[in-house]
Structures are given as C-alpha cells and as structure tokens.
C-alpha cells in the first residue's frame, strides 16, 4: 500500500484522486463538527463539501507532514461554518423557518442538549473538538489557531457554560 506522505506529495502536486483519498477518513469528523456548529445536518454536508474544495485549492499552502492535514482541514471546515452562518441566504432561509422556543427545545431534549444549543457556534467548536472528536490538545490548538494553553482555556470556559461546577482537571 502506498505510504501516506507520498499520497500527500502527489496531492500537493495536483492529483485530485490522491487528495480525495487523504480527505476521506476525515469526512466523518468534519461532518460532525459542522453539524454541531451549524445545528443543521444538510447545511453541514454543504459546508464540508465547500471546505473540501477550498482545501483542494489551498493544498499547496499545507505545511508539515500528513499529520498536519486533520487540524488544517478541520479549521477550514470551521471557517466554512462561520461563513455559512454569516451568509445572507442563511439568514433569510432561517428567518423564514423560525420556530417557537418550545419547538426549538422540545421536552424530550435534555438540559445539556438545550444548554449546548444556547452556546454560539464558536463556543461549541472547542467542545466538539475535545469531547466529541477526541482531538489531542496539540491538534485542537492548531485547529483553533491558538496556543495550547489558550485552547485549554477555551474548552474549559465553554464546558463551564454547560456545567458550572466543572474543574479544569475534570475536563483534561
């Protein structure tokens, strides 16, 4: 089987198939990240697809080895989600589809679920990366584009919004 660095090298040289094969193992995580950030499964798939195209166009800018690929791609997905939320069509469609608070937070949802959805997408991002995708702290920090200590702080701060008696030792 072909070594991953060689596939990456071919992808950087412009081989779309190599790039797709590198991306495929990351698509599930990328989708989950986008779905939680956007709270919309269909939009999440659109965001992942758009992020994949952008990543392909920027693949020459990828620094480091193939281990850099995941945080690099997830950061593009997160940016795409931010863009999607800012885009006008998003606002227009969502405004037309406004739900009542009761419908937004059905009784079947747990308090934690409701608390999670009350967070902003950027507050959900470190939680997803840490608690859901189980990214190591180094990758988490690279995805957020901050230092490891800052990444720790962001995860802890967001987790405290869900449960205020958490200590940082319980989070990490």
């Amino acid at each position, binding site marked *: 089987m072909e070594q991953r660095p060689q596939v990456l090298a071919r992808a950087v040289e*412009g081989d*779309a*198939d190599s*790039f*797709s094969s590198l*991306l*495929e193992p990351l*698509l*599930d995580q990328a*989708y*989950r990240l986008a*779905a*939680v950030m956007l*709270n919309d*499964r269909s939009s*999440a*798939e659109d965001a*992942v*697809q758009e992020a*994949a*195209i952008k990543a*392909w*166009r920027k693949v020459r800018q990828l620094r480091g080895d193939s281990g850099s690929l995941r945080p690099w791609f997830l950061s593009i997905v997160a940016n795409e989600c931010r863009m999607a939320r800012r885009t006008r069509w998003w606002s227009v469609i969502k405004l037309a589809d406004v739900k009542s608070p009761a419908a937004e937070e059905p009784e079947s*949802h*747990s308090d*934690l*679920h409701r608390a*999670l*959805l009350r967070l902003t997408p950027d507050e959900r991002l470190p*939680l*997803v990366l840490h*608690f*859901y995708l189980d990214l190591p702290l180094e990758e988490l920090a690279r995805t957020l584009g901050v230092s490891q200590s800052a990444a720790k702080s962001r995860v802890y701060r967001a987790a405290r919004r*869900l*449960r205020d008696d*958490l200590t940082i030792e*319980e989070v990490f």
Partner: protein
Amino acid sequence: MSNDDFRRELGHTFDDVAGSPSSNLRDRVRSAVTQAPEARGPYWIAGVAACVIAVLIVGVLYVANRPNPPSLVAGGHETPSASPSPEATASPSAQPTAVPTQSALPPFVCGSTTWAPSQPASTPYTEHISDLRTGVHSGYDRLTITFDRMPGQVEFHPQSGTAFTLSPSGMRATLKGKNGILIVMQGTDMHTSYSGPTDVVTGYSGLAEVRRVEDFEGVVQLGLGVNGAACYRAFYLGSPARLVIDVQTAS
C-alpha cells in the same frame, strides 16, 4: 452529575445533534474536488489580474503625482509690480529649443516680480542648478538657468546701480554695467550639480555680467549687471527645467 456521566451525556447530545452523514457525502466531496481544478485557473488568473491592475494604478498615481516640469511659462504665476515696457521685436532664439514664439512670450517689465509654483511641493526640497548659459539676441540678451527640477519661489528685483551685497559674508560687490537685477531663488542650490563659473562677464550690450551673490541654506541669489534699463522678461521651460531671463536691449 459525575464527570463520567457528564462526558457520556455530552457525547450522546453531540450524536443527537449531528446524527450521521449521508452515505453519498464521500462521493459528493470526491466529485467536487475532481471538478474543482477547473476553478483553480480563474482564481489564479484573477490573482494575476489583480496584481496587474494594482501595478497600473500605482503607475498612474506615480505619473500623476511626480513633480511636473511645466512646458511653457506654466511653472508659476506672475505677480508683477511694475508696468510692462514696449514689447521686443526680436525673433525667437534658436536656444533653448522649446522657446515659444515671440508673440507667446510675456512682455518685458522693469519692476519687481515674484514667481511662485502654482502647485507647491508637498515636501520641502532643494532644486539644483546644473547650468548657466548666456546669449545675444536681437532686442535682448538671454540668461538660461537649468535646474534638475523647477525651483520654488523666484523673485526679480531691478535696481539702480550694480552694487550687490554678498551673502552670507555681507561684503559688497559691484558688477559691470549701470543697473542691476537681483534674482532670488528659494529652495535652490548652486553647488551640488553646478561646477561652472560663478561670475560671468559677458561683454554683451545688455547683459554685462552675471554673478552668484548668495548660495546659502537653500537660497540662491544671482546679480545681473545690465548696461541699459533693468527691464526683463522671464519664463519657464521644461525638459529640462529651465528658467529663462531675457534682458531687454536697445535694438
């Protein structure tokens, strides 16, 4: 809620929110990536086009804002303080080449005048005199001062007698001729690019002598000794930047 319970419930919550991706997501992405290279060209071309446009804009701005040597008399506006004298009848000189026709030249004047740039420089600068030339023409003798660029304000002060005060020494110098014209040029020096004589005795019937009276702290004064009335006309020429002073003579 214990820490483990919190983590477990949070995991379930994330699952509830996200669900699973549709089965065709991989195909969608692969297809999109495969088709994407065609889109790379326009992006690349757009980048190059943006650079070219930026270079053009910078070039246009540079050309529009660079110091503008006027091609004819346009270097300043005249604020005459004297009445004009009868216009000379001489034909245009062969030198400098861009001298306008006689009818387009300003009239001779016998009083003080001040020339100031119509568009003052945004930053103070010092222009360098690079050459002095004199010549004889029918009806006038000509002094041509060549600059790197057009100077700032220029004043002309006719006077009786040819005694001038040298600056900064304060000594007096008497030039040839009967009357004089003092030319004061601000923002100019006559020692950076100029290596010719600073005192020229011409022997002409009108312009008898040209002498540097001051070249100090960005101000150059030239004293002209003239044999007849201290009547003159002055104008700018471009390419190269020149200040032309014609001293009126009898014929």
